[in-house]
C-alpha cells in the first residue's frame, strides 16, 4: 500500500500520543521513510506540548495578590438582587413575629382581657394593623388600658422605639439580645437554607411555645351594691 495512505493515520497516532496500531504499525516497521515521518510528528507534538506548558504556567508575580487586596478597599460588594432582599426580610420578620406572638399570646390585650385583667404586667407588642378589633379598641386605647394602672411600668421596663411607617414587622426582645437578633436576621439574608429551616420548624415549635396556663386570674366577682341597686361596678365608675 502506498505511503500516502498512512499519512493521516500517522498524524492521528502522534497527536493522541497512543502508539501506532494495526496496519500502520506493520507499515512503520517495514517503511523507513514513514517511520521517520512519524518520529518527526511525535517530536512536533512534544514541542507543542512543552511550549504550551511554558505559556500556560508562567510564574505569578508576587505583587499580584497585594495589589488586588489594596484594590478591594476601594470596592464595595454589590448587594444581593433587589427583589430578594424584601422577600428574605419579610419571611424572617413574619416568622419572628409569629414566634413572639405565640409567646406573648396569654397577655395579649384584647377587649376581654382589658376588662377582666385590669393592669397587664406582661409586655405587649402593639403593631398597627394586627389588632383583631381595630374598630372597637384602637391601638392607642389598648396601650392606655394596659398601662393605666401602673403608668410608670412601661417606661421602666420597656424601651419603645416608636414605629416609623414601615412594612417591617416589629418584635419585642430583651435589650441585650437586640444585637444577636439583628445578626441572626442578617444571616438569614445570606443563608436561604437557614431561613427555610427556621420557617419549617416554626409549626412544630407551636405546641412547645404555647403555654395557656401561665397566667390564671380568677373571675372578677360582681356583687350588687349595698342598698339594693343592682348595678355593675363598671357603670358605677362611669357615673362618678
Amino acid at each position: 500500500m502506498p505511503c500516502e495512505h498512512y499519512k493521516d493515520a500517522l498524524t492521528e497516532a502522534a497527536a493522541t500520543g497512543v502508539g501506532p496500531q494495526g496496519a500502520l504499525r506493520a507499515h512503520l516497521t517495514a517503511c523507513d521513510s514513514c517511520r521517520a515521518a512519524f518520529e518527526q510528528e511525535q517530536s512536533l507534538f512534544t514541542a507543542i506540548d512543552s511550549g504550551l506548558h511554558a505559556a500556560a504556567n508562567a510564574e505569578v508575580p508576587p505583587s499580584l495578590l497585594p495589589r488586588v487586596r489594596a484594590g478591594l478597599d476601594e470596592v464595595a460588594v454589590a448587594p444581593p438582587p433587589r427583589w430578594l432582599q424584601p422577600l428574605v426580610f419579610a419571611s424572617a420578620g413574619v416568622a419572628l413575629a409569629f414566634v413572639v406572638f405565640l409567646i406573648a399570646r396569654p397577655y395579649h390585650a384584647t377587649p376581654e382581657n382589658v376588662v377582666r385583667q385590669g393592669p397587664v404586667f406582661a409586655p405587649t407588642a402593639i403593631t398597627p394593623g394586627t389588632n383583631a378589633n381595630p374598630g372597637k379598641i384602637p391601638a392607642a386605647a389598648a396601650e392606655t388600658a394596659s398601662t393605666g394602672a401602673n403608668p410608670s411600668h412601661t417606661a421602666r421596663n420597656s424601651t419603645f422605639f416608636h414605629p416609623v411607617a414601615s412594612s417591617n414587622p416589629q418584635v419585642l426582645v430583651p435589650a441585650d439580645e437586640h444585637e444577636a437578633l439583628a445578626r441572626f436576621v442578617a444571616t438569614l439574608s445570606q443563608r436561604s437554607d437557614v431561613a427555610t429551616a427556621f420557617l419549617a420548624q416554626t409549626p412544630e415549635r407551636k405546641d412547645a411555645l404555647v403555654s395557656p396556663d401561665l397566667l390564671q386570674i380568677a373571675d372578677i366577682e360582681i356583687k350588687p351594691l349595698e342598698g339594693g341597686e343592682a348595678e355593675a361596678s363598671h357603670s358605677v365608675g362611669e357615673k362618678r
Partner: protein
Amino acid sequence: MQELVLIQPGSAARSEWVREAAQADARREFEERLRECGPLAYRVARGVLRNAADAEDVAQEALLRAYRGFDRLRDRSRFRAWLVRIAFRLALDRLRSAKRREQRDTLWSQPAHLPPPATAEDIAVSNQFQGHLERVLDELPEKLRLVLLLSAMEGYTIDEIAEMVGVPTGTVKSRIFIARKKLAEKLRCHANTIKMP
C-alpha cells in the same frame, strides 16, 4: 425585671454595622478565593497576552470585578468558572488594542518559564519555536484557545476544565485534540525549517 426593646428586625439588618459585618464576612471568604484562584486568573491572562505586566493588570481587574459581584459568586466552582471567563475576555480585549500589541511585540522574544537549554544555539531555536507557537495560538478560535490553555496548566483535570468553561467533558477532549492538530498544521512548515527544541 428584664428590659425589653421593640425593634424592627428588617431595619436593624440594614443598619450600618450589619452591613459592615456582612462586608467583613465577604472579604474573608473572598480572601480564600483570591489565594486559590488569583494565580489562575493571572495565567489565563498571561497565556493570552504573553506579557507579565499586562497579564497582572488584567488579572487584577478580573479579581476586582469578581469581588464586586461576590454575592452572586460565593459558590466555589461558580466563582472559578466566572473568573476564568472574565480574565480570558479581558485579556482578549486588551490583546486587540493596537497600542498594547506594539508593547508586547518587543517582549515576545523573552518567554517566561522555559527550562534553560544547554547551548546558545538551543536557546535561539527554542525561543524561536516558542515565539511561533504563541503567535499561532493567537490564530486559534477563542473557544479552542481557552480550553487548550487550561489543559496545559498544572493542576486542573478535564472535569474541572469542563466546569470552568461550561461544556461537557467530551467537548473539552475534542477541543483539545482539534486545537493541537491545528497548531501542528501551522507549525509543521516552521518545524521543517528550524530545528525543534
